[in-house]
Every structure is written in C-alpha cells, then in structure tokens.
C-alpha cells in the first residue's frame, strides 16, 4: 500500500523567494510561473514558438523537484499530462498551432472528467503549418475545439506580467473548479523579452488550490474504501445527459466569478476599441494616445475569453454603439463578442473590423484607423466586411 503521496519534497528550495524583478523571454516567464505555482511535471512535445517552455523547464525544474518528459507527439503529451494529474501531481503542458489541434482530444477527456489540466498555448499563424511566428487564430480552437461545449477557462494575457499572473492563477483556478484551464499567449509573447515581476504567491498570501489524487488513494480499494473508477464513456443518451448537466451547471455557476476584463477611457467615448492578448495592449496604448490628442475613444480588453465578460461589453455598448474590433485573426474575437451581445441590445451596433489574420498589429496603425472611423471614412464597406465574416 502506498503510505503517502510522493509529491515534491520539502527539501527543494522555493523557485521564487519573495519578489524578483527580471528582464525575461515570455516562455521563461511561463516556466517561472508554473514553478511558483508548484507545478511538478511538464510532459510536452516541441513546437515553435513554445519550445523554450520545454527548454527552460527541462533545465530548471529538476532543481525544484520537477519532472519532465518529451513525448512522441501532442496526443501523448496531453494524455500523459492527464495521467499525471489523476495521479495527484500538478502537471501542465504547452503547445501551439497544429499541436493545439491534437491537444483537443485530451482536452475533451478533461472536460468530461473534470481533470484540471493547465495548458499554455502560444499561438502561431494558421491554418495548417502556416507560420511559426504569431497570430490570434487559435481562439476558437482553444475555447470550442473539442467534441463538446467548450467547458474551459481561457485567459488571454497581454504582457509578461499578466502572463506570470494568469499562469499562476490558471493552476489555482483549474484545481479549484476542475475545468481545463488555458493560457492563450502567442509567438510574440513567447519570444519577446521585457520586464516582469516574479513573486512567490505564498509571500503575497495567495493560496493555490492543492492537488488531490484521483487514483492511488490511501487504503485498500474494496476493503478500506471504494475503488476509484473513472470513466468518460456512457451507454445511453440519458446517462450522458445526467452526467453532463451538473458539469454544465457548475460551469455556468462559477462563470461570473471568473470573468475578467480591463476597460478605460469610457467617459464620453464615441468609439470603443477592443482587442485581447498582445493586441489588447496595442489597443490600450492607441486609446491613450488618441485621448491625449483629444479623440473621444475608449477601450475594452477581455482578459478571459471563456467565459467571456460579455455583460460588461453590453453595458458599454449600451452607451456607445460603435465598436472597432481589432485582432490578428479573421473575426474570432468579433464572433465571441457577437455571441455575447446577439439580440441583447435594443439598438444596432456599428462594428468596424480590423482583422489581420496572422499579422501583428501596432498601436500606431490603430490610432490611424480610429481617426479614420471618427472622421467618417469607414462606413459601408467596412461594416459589410464585418457582417460577412460573421456567417
């Protein structure tokens, strides 16, 4: 019989002591956040632009009792991660592009069985192999990619600091609520280097939900306790429905507490700019710049893409029915927005697309675009383009 869980020993040093300023690459930030959150195993398969998550982890983690395995593909990586989690270890993985596709199979299993997997996705260009660089084209895949209802939590950070904060948080949220939790970065965030403040969550009084094993529990099964019998297959419709309903209800019960967003400069705004992730940052910078120049614009930046903070956006659009949606994809964020607001408003919303699938977007170009809209240079054609992309 197993007397106790062989989790990380206390003799290992804490990965982050107190607080520490650093100038880091994004993939490195992910690794430090995972270590600070007490992550124990990374099972993964290389893919650009997340490779360095594996490089740093495989180098650093052993010093903190962490384990690493490079598997034969993403299916193996994902399912091994589920196995490790069910054994009671805090495991996570990272992937991108075609790897994110293959990860949908284990994510679907996690959704059904409430396995708290944390996955970092560093988006690259798509569809297919496309580019190894950057895009925001994995939004729908990350949220709805499985053969189910997208019962996942998806964070979209926009800076290294948020990458650290939300990766830490992802582990907490995943284990607290038992839904797959994804941190959606991109190739820019992965490969760029900027300031970040690392901190020990404990030193800040943050508690991270402890792990609990699904299998290998203490006691002799069938004698001291019931055996743990976990499954994801059901025979009849009603059986599945009964299994699924409470999961869905749980998800929507906790959803309001999970939604996060940032908004600003809304007072008197005549145009709202919105974007998520690294683009959200360009949006914020552009709005600041525009306000300084006296243009009446505000911004809305969703930090959770799932659940989507749509109620807040509805409130904003109630006052200001003009929205510029900015993304490095062909309207994936726009679709999330339309899902939230569809039929909920008693007036039309003029929506302007700034869709650049696979292309980076700078604050400068947004300043220009916003000015063009405010100056009435972007009406018919743009709106039509927007609606088209929504079919």
């Amino acid at each position: 019989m197993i007397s106790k869980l062989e989790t990380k020993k206390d003799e290992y040093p804490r990965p982050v002591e107190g607080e520490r300023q650093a100038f880091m690459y994004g993939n490195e930030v992910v690794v430090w956040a995972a270590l600070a959150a007490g992550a124990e195993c990374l099972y993964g398969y290389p893919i650009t632009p997340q490779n360095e998550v594996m490089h740093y982890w495989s180098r650093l983690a052993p010093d903190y009792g962490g384990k690493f395995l490079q598997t034969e593909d993403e299916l193996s990586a994902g399912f091994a991660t589920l196995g490790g989690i069910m054994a009671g270890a805090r495991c996570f993985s990272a992937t991108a592009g075609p790897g994110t596709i293959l990860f949908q199979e284990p994510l679907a299993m996690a959704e059904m069985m409430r396995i708290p997997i944390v996955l970092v996705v560093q988006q690259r260009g798509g569809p297919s192999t496309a580019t190894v660089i950057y895009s925001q084209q994995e939004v729908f895949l990350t949220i709805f990619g499985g053969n189910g209802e997208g019962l996942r939590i998806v964070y979209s950070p926009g800076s290294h600091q948020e990458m650290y904060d939300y990766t830490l948080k992802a582990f907490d949220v995943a284990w607290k609520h038992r839904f797959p939790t994804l941190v959606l970065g991109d190739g820019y965030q992965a490969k760029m280097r900027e300031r970040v403040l690392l901190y020990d969550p404990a030193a800040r009084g943050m508690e991270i939900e402890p792990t609990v094993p699904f299998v290998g529990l203490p006691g002799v099964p069938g004698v001291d306790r019931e055996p743990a019998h976990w499954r994801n297959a059901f025979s009849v419709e009603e059986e599945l429905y009964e299994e699924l309903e409470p999961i869905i209800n749980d998800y929507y019960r906790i959803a309001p507490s999970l939604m996060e967003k940032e908004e600003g400069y809304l007072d008197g705004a005549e145009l709202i700019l919105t974007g998520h992730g690294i683009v959200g940052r360009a949006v914020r910078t552009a709005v600041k710049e525009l306000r300084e120049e006296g243009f009446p614009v505000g911004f809305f930046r969703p930090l959770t893409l799932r659940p989507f903070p749509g109620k807040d956006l509805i409130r904003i659009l109630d006052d200001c029915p003009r929205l510029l949606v900015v993304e490095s994809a062909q309207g994936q964020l726009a679709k999330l927005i339309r899902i939230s607001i569809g039929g909920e408003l008693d007036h039309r919303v003029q929506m302007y697309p700034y869709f650049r699938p696979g292309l980076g977007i700078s604050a400068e170009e947004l300043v220009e675009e916003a000015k063009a809209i405010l100056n009435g240079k972007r009406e018919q054609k743009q709106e039509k383009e927007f609606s088209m992309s929504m079919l």
Partner: protein
Amino acid sequence: MKSMPDSWRRETKPHKFCPGCGHGLVLKALGMAMDRLKIADRTVFGVDIGCSLLAWDFFNADTIQTHHGRTVPVIIGAKRARPNLVGIAYMGDGGGYAIGSQHLINATMRNDRILIIIVNNTIYAMTGGQMAPTTLKGQKTETSSRGRDPKYEGFPLRGPEMVASFAPEGAYVARGSVSHVQRLARYLERGLENQLQDRGISVVEALSTCPTNWRTNAEDTWKFLEKEMTDYYPVGELVSPFKRDTQKEAADLETCH
C-alpha cells in the same frame, strides 16, 4: 482454485463482456497475478476504448478509462508522476497496434516502467468487427468482406515480435493466450514483477476470443483461437530479464491450460 480472483470487484459482476468473451479470461489471469503480488491497492489500471472499456469498474483497483489508443500515455503520465504506483495499460489490438502504435513504440524505446497488455482478438470488436492489424490472412471482417488480402492490406502484425526486436535491457515481452489462463497469469505476473523491480517495460499480448464478431459457437471459438490464431501467433516469452527457472516452467506447463 478460486473461481474469482480477490482483486475482482464482485459488486460489478457479472461483467459487461459478451458470453464467451476472452476479455473475461485475460482479466482473470490479470486478477490472479495481482492477487499473487498483492498490488491491487497501489495499482492504476488504465483501460482503452474498445471492449476493454467495459472493464472500467472491473477490479477492486483504481481505474481510469481513457481514449482509444491513449491508455499507454495516460498510465505513463501517472507512473512518472508517482513511481510507486503500479501502472497497467489494458487495450485491444486496434488500440495497441493501430491508433496507439506510436505510443507503444516510444514507450518501449523509453523503457517506461509499466505493464502494457494488448488483447489480440484479430478484430475491432467494439465497433462491430472491422479488420484489425492482427486480422489473419483471408479472414473475413466487416471491412475485409472478401477476406484480408495481403497484397492490399498486408500480413497480420506480430506485435510482441516487433517490440522484442528493439526491446531495451530490462524489458519483458511475451505472448500468452486465454486458452492457457495460468500461463498467461504467469506472464502477467512476471510483467508486473519487472515493473516492481524497476527494470523496464513489460508488454504482454494475450490471444483472446470474440465469439460475437467471429460469429462462432463455443467449439469454433476454441478452434479459431487454438488453431488458426496460435499457428500464426506463437505463444511464449520473447524477451525476459528473469533467470529462467526451468523447473518452475515445467511445473507451469503441467498446470496450464
């Protein structure tokens, strides 16, 4: 002799396999091995999609029913996270040699300390009897209605032989059959011991029956297993890190059926 191993969960019996299904016998052999080694309390038993999923509540042991072909990585993930667990990955020949063969190959290469059991019934049973990598030459299935033709579909795959060809030091590879339950139990026990001793991977194929998809009565079921299948798939240990105890083996042979 006990009819039901202690590690079987009586509450869930009769089990969910068809009448005459060999899965019951493989799991009996496994139960015997688990009983002997007294490991049910630290076992993680993983079952694949395929008829093996019907064993999700079979044992008095913690069990994870996984996805088709993905039981090997799940069990590896658990075992590497908590090496004191005993990891068993139980699957069909479709799960082991088709959709999950990359995992089998790479787990073997890495010498992962788990026991992989592949139930060879020459067919995709759960989905209603399609061709498997193990379907015999000329054998008719739902997707080889004219009989498996080596020209287009190749010759049946001998999995353990393939695994043995590059099995690393410490690995244990064998093929048993449900027509010799005790010998199969011995192989499974050795596979588990190998894991307990942290030597290497263990891969045991079990020749099994599927009267439902073979559409055979009891007599023909035994015949197909013991003649056709065993002719092509020889039973025995292929790679073993254990010293051969010939006396014990002889004794085995006597009691084995």
